[in-house]
Structure formats: structure tokens, C-alpha cells
């Protein structure tokens, strides 16, 4: 808490949110596009088009959105996994532990190597296949973490064993090959791997999608407890709103490569403001409520040729004339609750 002195500098809408505690990650107007050129025809897919948000210390920030909303590309950009045809066109991704560089994609190799796994780690989508099938689990731990933790081989192994106990894994798994472990065990191994260096920031990309519900609950609880114990920040990405409700502190909703709404998770569920979010929340089943769910007309925008103005306007029930013309700015409509919508924030567009 930085005290009441610096409260409300009205020029930056983010400032209020950022004051609560210093952000570990500050994403500022990031734009990442896929640029391809085949036989002289160039094509640009604006997968991430101007996203701004902060992730604070010791919080789990959720990112939700349907397929092709750009959330995976956003994650890749933040993680610095930029490979052609993906290009960062503008904006920055600033980490508190890597001052002075506008993102991993723009940092020198030595800096990237210093940061990776020590400060920034991942639990990946499809964690079933993220462990090298030809290497014993202990070797994978050595490959990822030894250079940061140091110590002799024996000291390092003792440390890994102690850490495995936190995710309730037997030390015997270290001698096993990945195919000898069950899906849940493998996922726990990857969580232990991602947390052993006590990183400041963990990116979790759909880590529970391939698991059955029982294991899912177990894994989510584990992520939560380790995160609280270590004080790491987590960026948690999934399309599963149930998981978000269960786990995340704040939630950002993506649509068509942009962030359309962001608020504390309970508030998003109780008081969604953006029309897209309203539909998203409205589509969730509730016990005892058997009215048919309304589905949204139309389909997600083609990001190679996105709609002008607000990307949601062709499907939006509240669409106005201005929506097709102007991109709605992200405005803090309620304290800690930002929305990008002309209908919610009339007159916000300058």
C-alpha cells in the first residue's frame, strides 16, 4: 500500500488499479501480428491489437476468451516466444524483474537467459507432452533449474525432492520416464518444475484443459497454494469460465485480439458490463435454472480483415452508429473495473 498521497492522477486510467501494489507485469498497448507473404500477396492477421493490462504482485490474473480471441498469441508475446510469421508491431511488455527492456522479444540473449525459469516460468497447454519422453524426470529438472539454483548434483536433487513433496509426489518419480507417470502426476511434475526456482511470474496456459474434473480440482488447488506460499504472480489463461471463477483474483476478457473488460473476478460474474461479457456469463449453466441459454448470433471476427471500430459491433445488440467508426477506449467505469464499450461509457471517445 503506497498511501493516499498519490491517489488519482486522472490522466492515466490504469493508475488507480496499479496503485494497489506495484505491478510485476505491465503490458502496454501491445500489438502482435502474423505477417505472411506468399507469391507476392501479403497478409496480416492482427491477432493481438493493442492490449493493456497489469498483473500485480501475488495475484492470479485470469485471461478468458473464445478460440481465436488472441489469448494464446498474447501469451506467446508476453513469454517472448516470437517466431516468424508472428511479429511484435508495437507496444511493450515490461517485467519488474527485467527493468529497461520492452519485453523478452527485445532483450539481449544473456538477459533472456537470466530471466527464463528463474523469474518467469510456464505451465503449458498440453502438459502431457511437455516432458521429453527420452529423459528421466530428474534430467529435465537439471536442464531447467540447475543453472539457477546451483549446488552439487546431490544438493540439487535433495532440493528437488523437498519441493516435490509440496505437490505430493514421491521422490521415485525422479527416476521415472514421463510415459511411466499418469496424466495427473505429469501435470504435478510440471507444476513442481515451474515453481522450483520460486519465480516472480508464472504463465499458465490452459494447464487443466486435458485433465478430468477430479484431477483438475486437485491441480488448481495446488497452483493456488504454491502461489500463495511463494508470493508469485500468475497469469492464468483458459476459456473455461468455471476455472476462472474458482481460481483467479482478477479477470480480463478478450475478444477479437483486444481486451474488452477487466475487473475483479467476482465482479465480472455478478456485474458484467460489456455486452460480450454479458453473453459469456449468461451462457454459463446454473443449478436449478433451466431456461434455455441464448447463443450469440454470428461468429468471431476474421482478424485478417477485422470489423472497423469496435470489433464486437456486428454482433452487438447495443450497437450504435459510433461503434462502427471508433475504437472504444478502455475506461475505468467503476473502481477497478475497466470496460471498452461506447454504450457503457458514452462520450468517452474523444
Amino acid at each position: 500500500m503506497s498511501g493516499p498521497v498519490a491517489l488519482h492522477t486522472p490522466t492515466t486510467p490504469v493508475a488507480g488499479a496499479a496503485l494497489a501494489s506495484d505491478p510485476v507485469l505491465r503490458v502496454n498497448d501491445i500489438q502482435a501480428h502474423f505477417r505472411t507473404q506468399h507469391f507476392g500477396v501479403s497478409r496480416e492477421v492482427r491477432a493481438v491489437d493493442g492490449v493493456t493490462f497489469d498483473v500485480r504482485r501475488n495475484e492470479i490474473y485470469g485471461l478468458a476468451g473464445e478460440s481465436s480471441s488472441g489469448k494464446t498469441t498474447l501469451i506467446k508475446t508476453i513469454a517472448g516466444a516470437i517466431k516468424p510469421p508472428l511479429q511484435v508491431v508495437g507496444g511493450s511488455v515490461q517485467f519488474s524483474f527485467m527493468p529497461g527492456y520492452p519485453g523478452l522479444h527485445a532483450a539481449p540473449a544473456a538477459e533472456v537467459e537470466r530471466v527464463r525459469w528463474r523469474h518467469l516460468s510456464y505451465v503449458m497447454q498440453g502438459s502431457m507432452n511437455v516432458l521429453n519422453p527420452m529423459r528421466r524426470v530428474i534430467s529435465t529438472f537439471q536442464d531447467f533449474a540447475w543453472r539457477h539454483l546451483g549446488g552439487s548434483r546431490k544438493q540439487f536433487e535433495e532440493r528437488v525432492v523437498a519441493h516435490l513433496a509440496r505437490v505430493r509426489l514421491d521422490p521415485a518419480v525422479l527416476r521415472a520416464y514421463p510415459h511411466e507417470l499418469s496424466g495427473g502426476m505429469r501435470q504435478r511434475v510440471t507444476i513442481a518444475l515451474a515453481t522450483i526456482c520460486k519465480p516472480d511470474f508464472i504463465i499458465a496456459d490452459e494447464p487443466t484443459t486435458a485433465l478430468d474434473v477430479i484431477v483438475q480440482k486437485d491441480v488448481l488447488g495446488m497452483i493456488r497454494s504454491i502461489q500463495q506460499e511463494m508470493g508469485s504472480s500468475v497469469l492464468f489463461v483458459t476459456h473455461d469460465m468455471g476455472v476462472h471463477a474458482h481460481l483467479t483474483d482478477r479477470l480480463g476478457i478478450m475478444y477479437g485480439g483486444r481486451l474488452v473488460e477487466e475487473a475483479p473476478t467476482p465482479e465480472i460474474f455478478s456485474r458484467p458490463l460489456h455486452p460480450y461479457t454479458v453473453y459469456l456469463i449468461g451462457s454459463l449453466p446454473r443449478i436449478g435454472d433451466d431456461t434455455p441459454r441464448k447463443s450469440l448470433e454470428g461468429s468471431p471476427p476474421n482478424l485478417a480483415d477485422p470489423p472497423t471500430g469496435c470489433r464486437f459491433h456486428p454482433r452487438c445488440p447495443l450497437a450504435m452508429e459510433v461503434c462502427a467508426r471508433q475504437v472504444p477506449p478502455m475506461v475505468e467505469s467503476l473502481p477497478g473495473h475497466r470496460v471498452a464499450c461506447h454504450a457503457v461509457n458514452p462520450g468517452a471517445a474523444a
Partner: protein
Amino acid sequence: MSGYLAYLAKRLGQFVLVVFIGVNIAYVVTHATPIDPVEQSISAVTSFGNTAPEAIEQMRQSLKELYGVGGSWREQYFTFWSRILRADFGPSMSAFPTPVSALIGRALPWTVGLLVVSTLVTWALGNLLGGLAGYYQRSRSFKLMGVVAMGLHPIPYYIVALMLLIVFGFLWPVLPITGGSAMNLPQGWTLAFIGSVLKHSILPALSLILIGVGSWFLGMRSLVSNIVTEDYVQFAELGGVNRRRILGSYVMRNALGPQVTGLAMSLGGIFNGAIITEKVFGYPGVGTLLVDAVYAGDYGLVLGVTTISILGVSAGVLAIDLLYPLFDPRVQVA
């Protein structure tokens, strides 16, 4: 462990069966040739002047006995197997009375020396370059290498071999064009002889390597370009794992499986000799021996060479099957 022993026993039984069937097929095929080695030898002897018909008949009888071709087909067949089991292929018919095993024993070191070295070099070079080319897909020099490999690959082997002969034997005559060593040197572990052998092996080895590298290169490149998109490779890159470690232990190691099987097959095939190579470069190996034996109808020798080659290929496959669990932890025996 008892599971492994059961597997071993089963696999060994399979090996024996494959060799038995293979040798039988070779036996039938060689005995079905219209060339009769006895008549071949007799005509060679009798072509100079007159020989009494009784003497010819006598010679025919003793030759049949020596060659093991007398008696009914059943007797011949059992004679053949009892000899094989004692590793005795009988005397050669075209180089009578030298035993077949002595002929093969003389030719085998040449072939094995040349082919083991060139096969290993080809394999290592092709896989290393192919692996790098698959990993650094955007590198210009590896792209160029791919184009060269793709262009060299379909050229028939004998064209490359003859080109090498023309370039290094006539246009710029720096290397010997035929033989396994200089004729005037006594064979033995002398420096002069070893040097001569090495010098004579450069062209045949180079021709084999040039033609062989391309297919390993292309195979490994496509294997690796599949592996690099695997989750565990991307994950390791995001994890900041050392690049060299990723290339070695994550990419190459995991792509190598099919290539190791291929290596075992081609090492087993060495005992065939490289027939065209040995013919073109006049190399005194098993391939030359085999071709000459076929021309002479010397089926003792043909059978000897084929049996050794059947044993070689089957043993190579057997070795790979037994060693594979060590190489890939996912392969289970039981």
C-alpha cells in the same frame, strides 16, 4: 529380467529361423542355375587337346564327389547342411582347390574395412548435417545444403563413381584408380602398405559417402523438423534450456531412433559387398568375388557369400532389437 530372457529366447529362435529359410532359398536358387560347375571345369581342362573319354568320365566322378554334387538331391542337401554347420563351404569350383572360406576370408577384410568406415562416416555426417538443417531451418547455408543433397540424391551411383574416376584418375591424376593396394607391396602391417591401402580407398569411400549422405541428410532433416514442433522442445526453449542441450538431448536424440535402425540394416548389408563400387574401382572385396562366382557357376562360393550376408543382416537386426530398449526407454520388452 525373466521377461527379458524370454524375449531374448524368442528373438534368437526367430533369428535362427530367418537364417535357415534364407539359406534354403539361396540353396534352391543357386542349384536352379543351368550352369553345371562340373561340366564347366571339365571343358576348361579338356579344351587343350585330346583326353580319353574314360578319363573324362573318371574326372567327372571325382569332381562330383569333391564338389559335393554327387548322389541324389537329398544326399546333396544334407551334405550341404552338415558342411554349413561346420562353417565349411567346401572347395571353390572356379578356384579349385582353394576352400570357399579361404576365398571369403581373403576378400572380407577389404569389404568390411571399406564399408564399415564409409557407412559410419556417411551416417554420422548425414545425420549431423540433416539434424542441424532441420533445427536451423532459416539458415541459408543449410537451405543450400538441402538443395545440393536433393540434387545429388537421384544421380545413379555409377555416374558419380565414374565421374570421380575421370576427375581424380585422368584429368587430375592424383589417386590410384583401381585395386586395393599397390601391386608391388607385400601385405602386412607396414606403414607403406597401410598408406597404400588408405590411398586406394579414398575414391571408393568418397563415392559411397557422396551418394549416401544425401538420403541420411534428407531423412534426418524431415525427422527433426517434426520434432522441433513438439511441445517438449518448445517448452525447453521457453524454459531457457541451453541451446546445445536442446539440440542434442531434445531434438537429435529423439529423432535418431529410425536412423539407428537404418544404420544397423546397412551395417548388416555390408557383407553383401558393394558390388558396383568394387567392380568400378577394381576393389578386391566380397562383391567382386560374388559376381565372378555367379559367372563361373561356382555355387559353393555364391552360397558361401550369401550365407554370410544373410547372417550379417539378421544379426544386425537382432542386435538392434536387443539394444533398442537401452536406446529408447519407451520400448518395452516382455
